[in-house]
């Protein structure tokens, strides 16, 4: 792969400790904040840019605008009381928090969730993935001025939220996956309404493909822009579509199959150019794969059987001392929960490994150098980051 080699002679020299020697008094450089209130920023974070002309010479990610100390709050709550907290760690795709936390508790408490519950969980996770990708596509197009795509994808996402509402009773925070299983089965006639929703989403995605991915402006500004070198994947812990667009088929669903993914037919979607366009395209195709996976799940899932394991009352749980890590493949990459218990009724430590932690901090700060100010938003959105995962 050939990379653009910038002319560094115009840029500040490096000090012995590796930081840049930026003399703001020289008038050559300017500090520019993108965020925390800015249309071209992903959620509540900001990037402190140092620019020379209209080119970025240094970028620093700042987070902390919505820090509530989720991990600390959980240490004071019983295992079941943590549920209203975990789902708030990622707003557009909360189900992975519920799933990873529930399985981590199951793993340490020695609970086995019933098979039907695993199918339900896989269904919910794939539905959440579609929601998250639809939100991303709207944001990615919006960052480059194609506002209408966001309106279409919001419409499609709303249909999926309706399916969530009839299944779980809630639109955003479902709290449907519990340790031991799930709260309920499918409502009557759900399959048919889901099929209608999936067809509508496919139809919207066809329009999105025509209007966004064949758009001259979109292509001009994204092809060859914001390339992730495959060598950075291990250095920066890059996972998910960001890694798959670089040609590495990293997908937890395939690498370490969890739930029922062994019984489903799919191939991780990969791309090769590793630029913003490829990452968008990988996510678009991954979304269509999730549509297919939902059809497979609905066709194969058992319609009878227990939905939750036989367990003592959750209000009085004490879990023996131990530690575990549980991961899943969310729309942004590897999502994981590291849970430590000490034999009491409260978690000793919960650590959330969100993919945005590495993507929005170290990786973005590395990639943002030498790009134009007007491309910062597109680059940032293309990494698909959600700030609450960084500042749990």
């Amino acid at each position, binding site marked *: 792969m050939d990379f653009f080699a910038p002319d560094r002679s115009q840029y500040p020299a490096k000090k012995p*400790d*590796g*930081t840049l020697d930026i003399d703001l008094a020289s008038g050559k450089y300017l500090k520019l904040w993108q965020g925390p209130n800015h249309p071209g920023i992903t959620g509540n974070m900001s990037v402190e840019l140092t620019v020379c002309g209209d080119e970025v010479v240094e970028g620093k990610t700042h*987070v*902390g605008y919505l*820090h509530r*100390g989720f*991990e*600390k*709050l959980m*240490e*004071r709550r019983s295992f079941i009381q943590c549920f209203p907290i975990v789902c708030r760690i990622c707003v557009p795709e909360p189900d992975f928090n519920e799933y990873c936390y529930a399985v981590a508790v199951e*793993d340490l408490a020695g609970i086995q969730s019933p098979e039907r519950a695993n199918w339900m969980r896989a269904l919910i996770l794939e539905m959440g993935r579609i929601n998250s990708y639809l939100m991303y596509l709207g944001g990615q197009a919006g960052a480059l001025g194609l506002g209408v795509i966001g309106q279409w994808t919001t419409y499609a996402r709303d249909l999926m939220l309706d399916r969530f509402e009839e299944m779980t009773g809630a639109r955003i925070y479902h709290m449907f996956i519990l340790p031991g299983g799930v709260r309920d089965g499918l409502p009557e006639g759900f399959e048919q309404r889901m099929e209608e929703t999936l067809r509508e989403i496919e139809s919207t995605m066809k329009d999105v493909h025509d209007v966004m991915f064949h758009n001259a402006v979109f292509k001009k500004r994204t092809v060859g822009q914001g390339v992730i070198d495959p060598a950075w994947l*291990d*250095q*920066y*812990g890059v996972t998910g579509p960001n890694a798959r667009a670089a040609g590495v088929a*990293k997908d937890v669903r395939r*690498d*370490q199959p969890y739930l029922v993914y062994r019984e489903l037919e799919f191939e991780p979607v990969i791309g090769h150019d590793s630029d913003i366009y490829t990452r968008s395209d990988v996510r678009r195709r991954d979304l269509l794969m999730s549509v297919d996976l939902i059809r497979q799940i609905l066709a194969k899932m058992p319609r009878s059987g227990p939905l939750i394991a036989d367990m003592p009352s959750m209000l009085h749980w004490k879990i023996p001392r*131990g*530690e*575990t*890590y549980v*991961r899943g493949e969310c729309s942004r990459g*590897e999502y*994981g929960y*590291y849970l*430590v218990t000490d034999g009491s009724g409260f978690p*000793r*430590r919960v*650590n959330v*490994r969100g993919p945005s*932690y*590495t993507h929005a*901090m*170290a*990786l973005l700060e*590395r990639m943002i150098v030498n790009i134009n100010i007007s491309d910062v938003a597109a680059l940032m959105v293309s990494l698909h980051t959600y700030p609450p995962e960084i*500042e749990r």
Partner: protein
Amino acid sequence: MRALHTRLQQLFPLGELTEQRPDLGFVTVPAAYLRPTLLHLRDREGYTHLVLLTAVDWLEDGQFQLTYLLSNRSSAQDLGLRVLLPREGASMESIHDVWPTAATYQRELREMFGIDFPGSPRLHEEFILEGWNDIPPYRRDFDTLKYARANYTDRPGRETHDPEQHMKQQLYPDGA
């Protein structure tokens, strides 16, 4: 996992392996041997992905536990390395040159637990908290409730109910 542990034990003084699942194990490493163990796992055993680096506060033992979780994608196995540090003046060797992304984790641990990683880039820049002047907030001896009461005032006109009393009132209104 057992075979890997046996191979590693011939090279480094490791503790016993805790096999949580067939694909996940945890092992304790003396702080001085962490770096060679990490490099060996990364370069010779295919554990190239640093999944996370975090700390656990064992206040009653007077220790911090640092957990370095590594993943090997080809064998689909994860190994967690535990390093125990004394809580007083906790300091650990930085691994930002082994995995550049570790610098972010170390910056967070310095702020949230007060563990020092000498040499780690931008270690003393504020990560999440601004102008923090209390003990590091993720330590077990930091009391969130006490801090909130000392620093913030309640909005007037707000009622709070003790959940236990509230449920008792709901279930047994006549106080039975």
